[in-house]
């Protein structure tokens, strides 16, 4: 293994590439996400030796092999559990979990809920391509109703799950969204996720060129993107459209959004700390509404491992006086001579 220690200069995106050949399908959205991640890591100045990528199983889960940091490719759906153990053992490590829609929302659904509600200080990036790629194209929990696949030749009859709504429902304190093809946007979102203390949840819409090509065209295609994407900025009005001519506001008297001209009164202003607004934004779907991208929710709270250690230290964690002899002789003893 080649060892490159870079100490005399800031790390560049290419310094975060491992020596392994990347083996995703040509044209896969994962390449763009990898590139964005390498740039984000360089931007935030992540020390390679303290950065750990943990993944489960699936196409996305190969990610750690291609980053020059520490990496652990685990088993299907369970990356959050291993990441939690890593953070408990060494809270100083900077942990990223890379997962997919099947990995995080089907087989690993339980762990996603709990890593978010516990607020473990890590970044969880979910590559959502609405399909099982590595197993050759079966419908996934995010596939839209009617999706035809080898296991649903007549079309899926199941309702899809919304990743961001699940994350918010689980109590995530940071929920954001981006798209594989929006490089600058994605780099920014990943940077924000990294900056946030506690569990950061990022959903990235990722195109699977082989099994689900173009599934996000209804809001990512160049010609309609301005009309179909709402780019969120904290403190800024919720406006979109080619000339930013459209806006969102609450239907008077209802907890429901409607599209109005940007010139209308009562246009909503994005507030990252408003969970109810984040839920509404997460639920927006084309064609009636644009897809909300950027940071939907950011409202930090103490991280899990910090609370665990604070409590344990108060209870004497690792105090020098804790001798084993004292432990074994605690309670009632008697001496036989």
């Amino acid at each position, binding site marked *: *293994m080649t060892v490159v220690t870079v100490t005399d200069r800031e790390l560049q995106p290419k310094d975060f590439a491992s020596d392994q050949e990347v083996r995703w399908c040509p044209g896969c959205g994962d390449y763009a996400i990898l590139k964005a991640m390498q740039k984000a890591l360089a931007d935030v100045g992540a020390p390679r*030796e303290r950065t750990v990528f943990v993944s489960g199983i699936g196409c996305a889960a190969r990610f750690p*092999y291609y980053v020059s940091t520490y990496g652990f490719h685990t*088993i299907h759906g369970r990356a959050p559990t291993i990441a939690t153990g890593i953070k*408990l053992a060494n809270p100083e490590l900077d942990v990223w979990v890379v997962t997919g829609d099947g990995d995080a929302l089907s087989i690993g659904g339980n762990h996603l809920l709990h890593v978010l509600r516990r607020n473990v200080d890590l970044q969880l990036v979910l590559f959502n391509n609405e399909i099982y790629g590595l197993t050759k194209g079966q419908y996934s929990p995010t596939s839209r109703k009617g999706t035809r696949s080898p296991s649903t030749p007549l079309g899926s009859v199941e309702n899809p799950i919304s990743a961001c709504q699940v994350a918010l429902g689980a109590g995530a304190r940071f929920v954001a969204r981006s798209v594989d093809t929006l490089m600058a946007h994605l780099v920014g979102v990943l940077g924000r996720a990294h900056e946030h203390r506690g569990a950061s949840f990022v959903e990235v819409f990722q195109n699977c060129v082989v099994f689900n090509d173009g599934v996000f065209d209804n809001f990512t295609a160049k010609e309609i993107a301005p009309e179909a994407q709402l780019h969120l900025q904290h403190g800024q009005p919720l406006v979109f459209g080619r000339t930013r001519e459209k806006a969102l506001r609450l239907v008077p008297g209802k907890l429901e959004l409607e599209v109005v001209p940007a010139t209308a009164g009562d246009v909503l202003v994005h507030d990252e700390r408003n969970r109810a607004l984040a839920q509404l934004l997460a639920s927006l779907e084309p064609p009636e509404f644009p897809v909300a991208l950027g940071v939907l929710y950011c409202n930090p709270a103490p991280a899990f491992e910090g609370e665990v250690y604070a409590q344990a230290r108060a209870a004497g964690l*690792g105090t020098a006086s804790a001798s084993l*002899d004292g432990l074994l002789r605690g309670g009632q*003893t008697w001496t036989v001579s």
Partner: protein
Amino acid sequence: MATSTPPRPSRTREAVESVVIRFAGDSGDGMQVTGSQFTVETALAGNDLATFPDFPAEIRAPAGTTFGVSAFQIRFGAADVLTAGDAMDVLVAMNPAALKVELRDLKPSATIVVDTGAFTERNLAKAGFAANPLQDGSLAKYRLLPFDITKLTADAVKTFGLGTKEAHRCRNMWALGLMLWMYGRERAATVEWLQKKFAKRPDIAAANVAALNAGHAFGETAEMAEHVVGYTVAPAHFTPGVYRTVSGTEALAWGLIAGMRAAGLSRMIFSGYPITPASALLHTLANLKAFGVLTFQAEDEIAAIGAAIGAAYAGALGVTSSSGPGIALKTEMLGLAIATELPIVLVDSQRAGPSTGMPTKTEQSDLFQAVLGRNADSPLAVIAPCTAGDCFPIGVEAVRLATKYMTPVIVMSDTYLAHAAEPWRIPEERDLPRFPVRFRTDPAGFQPFQRDPDTLSRPWALPGTPGLEHRIGGIEKDFDTGHISYDPANHHRMTQTRAAKIAGIARDIPPQDVALGEPLGKLAVVGWGSTFGAIHEAVRRSRGEGLEVSHIHVRYLSPFPANLGDLLRRFERVLVPELNNGQLVQLLRAAYLIDAQGFNKISGKPFHVAELAAAIREHAGRDS
């Protein structure tokens, strides 16, 4: 014998060698704490002892029913006590249901103490008695001591102004007081314990102490019937040292901590998911943070082992624990730990199965699961403590093997060991082994799966170490570079290397010893795990009868000690008693091509010495 002249402040006591007492009542009657306190006082009196708590799965079954009976058995004596005893000398039955359930395990001339206050028509009916057994003569062969403990307790505590319910709850202390008197035990430790336990309710503490004292005084004064005598049990002969009573759960928790310290690790991450009977270990360790332990209650069994693996990857001692069904859920993760060669300890507190089975009852039926129960060729180390006290060195050994060989290690405990208590000579930390781990820090020539030529284990390289950045995972790795590899010959080589690594542990563990008897002869009785005491006593008894029989107890189940096959071949016959339908016997037959025979009991209860002795007579007496 007792004299009849009152008052009798120091009545003559009858000396006995050993006694089996069983406290039985409703699961809400406090029988477990009664038994535990009797155990403490007995230990302080210097007797050897063994205990067996036996409680229902229901937390509060309907009062008065037979399935709600909770019991605690203790055997104590002057000589080597290795089991809680086959049959009772004394039964303390707090209600008709307890009497009904426990009658079958009484010695013919046993003493039965009953609370007549609880023998109401309603309770008799609930227990399924057509007639009151206290009056219909059906207990004539026993020595029946019927006292209205309910009323005597109420009288004793009435000055404290408790409600009827709270006063009623002191009955167990009255019964305890009587039994402490009967066997000449002190009460001071129990009084201290009551005052601590009810520190926030001094009235309840005082009432319980009053009930305890009243029960004791009842025995001491003329109130007792003439035929009731006190007994003395001479102290046992112990090796000099400082002693305490210890349960398997406590000893294992402390052993794991001792192992962590011996390995030079500063942190244990113990993660578990609630399951009977394994949760006790989680509860015990949750209170030991000062010793570097962080406990984590995970969202499920898989997450629990996942966190342990993550912790091991980051340089802590990763430990997880469960019982049979939970171990099944952890199986895929064990495979990951085997493939990535990370050190974790998994404790299996076995219970009766399959599926939910009988969660509070003991069994040894997870041996196949531990040794063989994974997809693919996936060997790991399996060890088993044989007594409550042995859980301590086994805990230390589990950490040694895990860290030295970079492998998961399964520790096979069970319901019986988890709860059973015995006197234990406390070791000194300075006498414990030292096996400091060496984390890899040198980047020069580093490869994550580069093996130590002796142990075949890979380096433990922690995230956070500059220059060692690397990727591991469940995919097969190249032997030389550690990178992903699908090469056919490489997979063959890696599979055999993983097997050789575990097999090599046999060179690093003590040779199999013979617990009792000669290292050759007519019959070897081979056990493993919590059956040690019963087998040992049965072999001792059989040898006393002149039978040529030896006891061999296997603590290392994967790999077996290197000499085990040769040792077993020196016996004409091999008998393998197990609390399952025959698992070790199969492993021994497969490993050594010997005609080992099983003796199996699958009732959720430990072996009785008598049934083992009968099986030994049958096998040792037979010509081969």
